[in-house]
């Protein structure tokens, strides 16, 4: 599943960068994430409870920030396991400076699903991804405000 | 555990089952009425169709305890005193079955249809079967079988209860 899109923020790329690199904030704004425990630098153990419509699952796994180039880009590597299937995603995030102090956040990546999620979830998957993304950006916006 | 009381094919039944027991499992495992089949896990195939208070229901999609107090009819209850129901007869006469696995569900769905429309068109029959898969017959003879039964019912040769 492709994850691609962008979102405009009324904040500097530095401000966004700082938010995103702060585990506490990240826990707050990432939909479903209930706990983020630092294992080593830029690497976290993540626990998520995702509840969307008919699907409710507890996910557990890793979140890793890689290829950091402050404050322009980084790659988020996520692996999450659950009884209904596993999810892993590599998402490249770019923070592009715009006029008037605005920043465009662009993301481009792929999510890889397995198990029941891959097999029977097709009908709703793009919706799930959209919803989670929207929630994330809204929360980030709030955080920046 | 939940207590379930049902009238199944005219007989009272009272059993204790786990709350999560699906009606299809209850019929098959608890009552050994294995004529009701399970062909999928997404409520799509219709092999498990039975009549609950006269209406066609996918027994894999209701809990046994939800059906508590209902009148249930399964394929085992369709014949009366050894005489086949017109639908059973129709399926035999028109070769409406091959492997037989989808057949009970097909017949129960058709019974619901004929209970409120005893002269369905081919299109109406095909639409009524939209929730039942058959992989053997291409549905061709199933349609004929239901037409056969409808004709027999209309001619008054058979009184039908659904």
């Amino acid at each position, binding site marked *: 599943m492709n994850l691609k899109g962008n979102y405009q923020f009324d904040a500097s790329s530095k401000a966004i960068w700082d938010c995103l690199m702060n585990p506490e904030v990240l826990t707050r704004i990432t939909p479903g994430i209930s706990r983020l425990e630092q294992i080593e630098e830029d690497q976290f153990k993540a626990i998520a409870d995702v509840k969307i*419509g008919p699907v409710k699952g507890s996910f557990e796994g890793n979140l890793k920030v890689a290829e950091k180039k402050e404050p322009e880009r980084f790659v988020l590597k996520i692996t999450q396991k659950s009884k209904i299937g596993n999810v892993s995603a590599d998402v490249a995030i770019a923070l592009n400076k715009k006029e008037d102090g605005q920043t465009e956040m662009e993301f481009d990546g792929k999510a890889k699903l397995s198990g029941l999620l891959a097999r029977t979830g097709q*009908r709703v998957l793009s919706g799930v991804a959209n919803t989670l993304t929207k929630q994330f950006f809204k929360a980030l916006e709030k955080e920046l405000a | 555990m939940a207590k379930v009381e049902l009238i199944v094919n005219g007989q009272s039944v009272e059993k204790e089952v786990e709350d999560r027991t699906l009606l299809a499992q209850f019929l098959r495992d608890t009552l050994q009425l294995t004529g009701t089949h399970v062909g999928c896990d997404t409520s799509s195939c219709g092999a498990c169709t039975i009549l609950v208070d006269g209406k*066609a229901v996918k027994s894999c999609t209701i809990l046994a305890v939800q059906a508590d107090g209902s009148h249930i009819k399964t394929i085992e209850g369709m014949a009366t005193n050894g005489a086949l129901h017109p639908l059973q007869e129709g399926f035999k006469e028109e070769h409406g079955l091959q492997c037989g696995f989808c057949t009970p569900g097909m017949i129960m769905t058709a019974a619901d*249809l004929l209970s409120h429309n005893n002269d369905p068109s081919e299109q109406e029959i095909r639409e009524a079967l939209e929730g039942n898969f058959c992989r053997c017959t291409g549905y061709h003879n199933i349609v004929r079988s239901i037409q056969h039964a409808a004709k027999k019912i209309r001619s008054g040769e058979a009184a039908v209860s659904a």
Partner: protein
Amino acid sequence: MIPTGFTYHRASSLKEALDLLNTHDDAKLLAGGHSLIPALKLRLNQPAHLIDISRLDDLKGIKEEGGTLVIGAGVTHGEIAHSDLVKEKVAMLAEAADLIGDVQVRNVGTIGGSLAHADPAADWPALMLAAEAEITVLGPNGSRSISAEDFFTGFYETALGEDEVLTSIRIPIPPAGTSTSYQKFMQPASRFAIVGCAAMITRTNGTCDRVRVAFTGVADKAYRAKGIEDALTGKAYDTGNIEAAVSSAAEGVDVMSDHFASEEYRSHLARVYARKALSAAS
């Protein structure tokens, strides 16, 4: 095929249902169960408690109440499809009900259950929006009414609180001169809507006084196509005007994409089905 274990409760009144809902964490209401039980069987969801509200008389029945069609939340799709009152007053509801799932699903699945579930490809949300339904819910602090427009808040998301029960749907009976239609392009395997379009048009002497068009299946939630409505209101009901109006069918929404319909194709279908629904509502 085997759900995880849970405790089943049968509510004998709405009040009891609310109490149970408030006493138990991780509880789900069970009406027809035709959205919930399939999810439980695949273990996509694992609630600890199910509260069965399917037998509550308060949730039953279809009636007319002073210019309003009132449908109990526990009314099945099949009952709506066969209701003479519905056919006479708001025909598209019966038309749509007959296209939901299959016979067996329609015999058990309920309108309230479907609305609370808010599947983005379910049929009812489009109809509720086009009919400007009010959705009545009961919570610990009493009853409240939510307009359909406010009810569907997102992807499988509604304004229904976790401690509330959806009790009925109230639909204003449209004035004379109103015609309605629901047209659906089905996903061939699941028979959910890839595009479902509900249209309601009130006309005087061939001019559209009031137009309501809503879609399901297209975006992550059902929506009203205000662009189409505005483009046709006050205009003559004819092919040219309809054609011009439907071009905006999928504008301003995030169009979904799956194996059966890409974003582009789905957008195209939205226009086609808007035309079909508007043309059929004659």
